[in-house]
């Protein structure tokens, strides 16, 4: 396990919205299934005193933490207030914030991640599906029925593409240790390098699937930082330059961050690169 286990107690910020309440239910169903603590409190300013799926709601993170011993937050707060909510979580002393919210202005994300860092609070995301350690912990919105416990770590900038790869792995009989969606925005908290460092310390993880896409060079930076066996896949080989491919971070700018040169650099570092998702299980089996 990395980032948490069965004993991780969770709060949800943005608890009373459609997304928040829906996923509190799913996260707690999963927690019951695996015998975990799950979501113990929700936070929505002005909605303190209510209940969502049997979970008490508070006005602030501080008030929630006065009643509950949580260490992590999963955040569904609307984009315009999400940066502020990340800072609130860090200020109240949480160790980990999973920011699911999409479309957060990048200046807000940059400030919030920096502010959280001052108190040692790690941010995963924004614009991410969260993480799932099969049999232990689900923080976020990943569809748990596709997952099975095992020894392969998965790190990805994407959501559904991650589910696609996890599905392929599970069908091939290859289980996962922890699957982390680090988010599709230009500025994200935990990067490939950060998650890989955790996997290195994790005895359960024997090999890693790294799913990247066009834009930036965090994939190369991550691979350079670790000795773990890796199979990589990079989406966006056919992406045209200067066009945002859905994710705010998926853009080839100033001739940089295109998939082909990324793949070339990864191969130079002796990383196996799959040319399509369905090749990944076969390649990772070779490394186990």
């Amino acid at each position, binding site marked *: 396990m990395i980032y948490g286990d069965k004993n991780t107690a969770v709060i949800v910020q943005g608890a009373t919205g459609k997304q928040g309440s829906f996923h509190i239910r799913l996260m707690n169903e999963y927690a019951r299934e695996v015998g975990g603590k799950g979501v113990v409190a929700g936070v929505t300013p002005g909605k303190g005193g209510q209940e969502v799926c049997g979970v008490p709601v508070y006005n602030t993170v501080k008030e929630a933490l006065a009643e509950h011993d949580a260490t992590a937050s999963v955040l569904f707060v609307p984009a315009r207030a999400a940066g502020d909510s990340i800072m609130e979580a860090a200020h109240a002393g949480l160790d980990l914030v999973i920011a699911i919210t999409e479309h957060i202005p990048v200046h807000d994300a940059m400030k919030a991640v*920096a502010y959280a860092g001052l108190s040692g609070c790690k941010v995963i995301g924004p614009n991410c599906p969260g993480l799932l350690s099969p049999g232990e912990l689900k923080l976020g919105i990943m569809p748990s029925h596709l997952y099975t416990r095992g020894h392969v770590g998965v790190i990805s900038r994407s959501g559904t593409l991650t589910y696609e790869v996890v599905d392929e792995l599970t069908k091939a009989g290859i289980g996962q240790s922890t699957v982390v969606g680090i988010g599709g925005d230009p500025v994200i908290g935990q990067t490939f390098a950060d998650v890989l460092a955790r996997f290195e310390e994790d005895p359960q993880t024997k090999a890693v699937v790294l799913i990247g896409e066009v834009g930036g*060079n965090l994939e190369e930076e991550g691979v350079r930082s670790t000795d773990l066996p890796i199979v990589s896949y990079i989406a966006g080989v056919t992406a045209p330059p200067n066009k945002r491919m*859905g994710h705010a971070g998926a853009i080839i700018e100033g001739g940089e961050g295109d998939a082909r040169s990324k793949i070339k650099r990864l191969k130079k570092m002796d990383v196996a690169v799959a040319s399509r998702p369905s090749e990944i299980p076969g390649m990772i089996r070779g490394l186990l």
Partner: protein
Amino acid sequence: MKLLEFEAKELFREEGIRVPKGLLVSEHEEILLHMDELGDKVVVKAQVDVGGRGKAGGVLMADAGNVVETARHLFHTPIKGVPVARVLIEERLAIEHEYYVSIAIDRSSKQPVILFADAGGVEIEQTAKENPDAIRKVTFSPLLSDVPDFLLRELTGDAPKGVRETINRLYHVFCKKDALLAEINPLVTTPQGVYAADAKLIIDDNALVRQGIAVNRDLTEREKEAEKHGFSYVELDGAIGVIGNGAGLTMSTLDLIEHFGGKAANFLDVGGGADQERVKYAVRLVAGMPAVKVIIVNLLGGITRCDEVARGIIEAGVEQEVIVRLAGTNEAEGRKLLAEKGYRMLGSMDEAVRAAVEVTA
């Protein structure tokens, strides 16, 4: 969204950055009445979003005698195919030295990064390739409201103090306007002080609302239409229409099409909650492109309801064949509905993409 030079200069001016005196005109507007304010020698600049505008003939020197003709010439000469609707006529500065400065966001350090070069005016990408040491670079905490002066001194070396002040003001613009890029190229020194001779500003699309910008001009009509429905949409030039959920999965579908020898017509990410209405609309939008011969719908998700998606596809009732790859809840019902109407629903991404490529082969 990219701002045009005159828009960026207006925002620079508000923050105390000196810009040349200028006059913005559309065609048939009176120019000569205002020439007194600008002096005899002027620069006439097409206001178009085109890289390498100067080299492409979009920036011309003129004087009071031929300024009207020069402006008229620009109105009738598209720059790299982009028609010129507005022209900025500016006083010509007595330039002593040109610098390059830009502020952007560094993904690696998650901080603002300032690039500075002693030689401005040329394309920075070229300098970066040919003489990378000529570009200096600093990053600093985004929690600071000013660029620390020691960093500015490190960055600008012997440049006059006014250059440092201007860069700090540019950082204020960068923050206040939610910029992804704020660039002055060239930043010039003159006997009258330091000026931003050119200006470039790209605003974060996720901050357009709070910046009071209602319409993203960088999008095509179809892209705007798609955005209204919450889709991410990019037009390409192949014959296979693509609809997916999630940016990564949709990009991957495009790549797979190429892998099997086909060419995608578009990228369309329907986003979360692919329900009947949204799917119907997405299918119709993609089918509306004349080049599209076949459409592949690739949706995967824990909470996507396959029966709803199937109804959306059927209701769209487009002429082209729609090949479906669906995984989610109520999968069996979705499959049954689609089969009844003669749609092919395939089990894997590879199979579905192969089938679509075969249709166009």
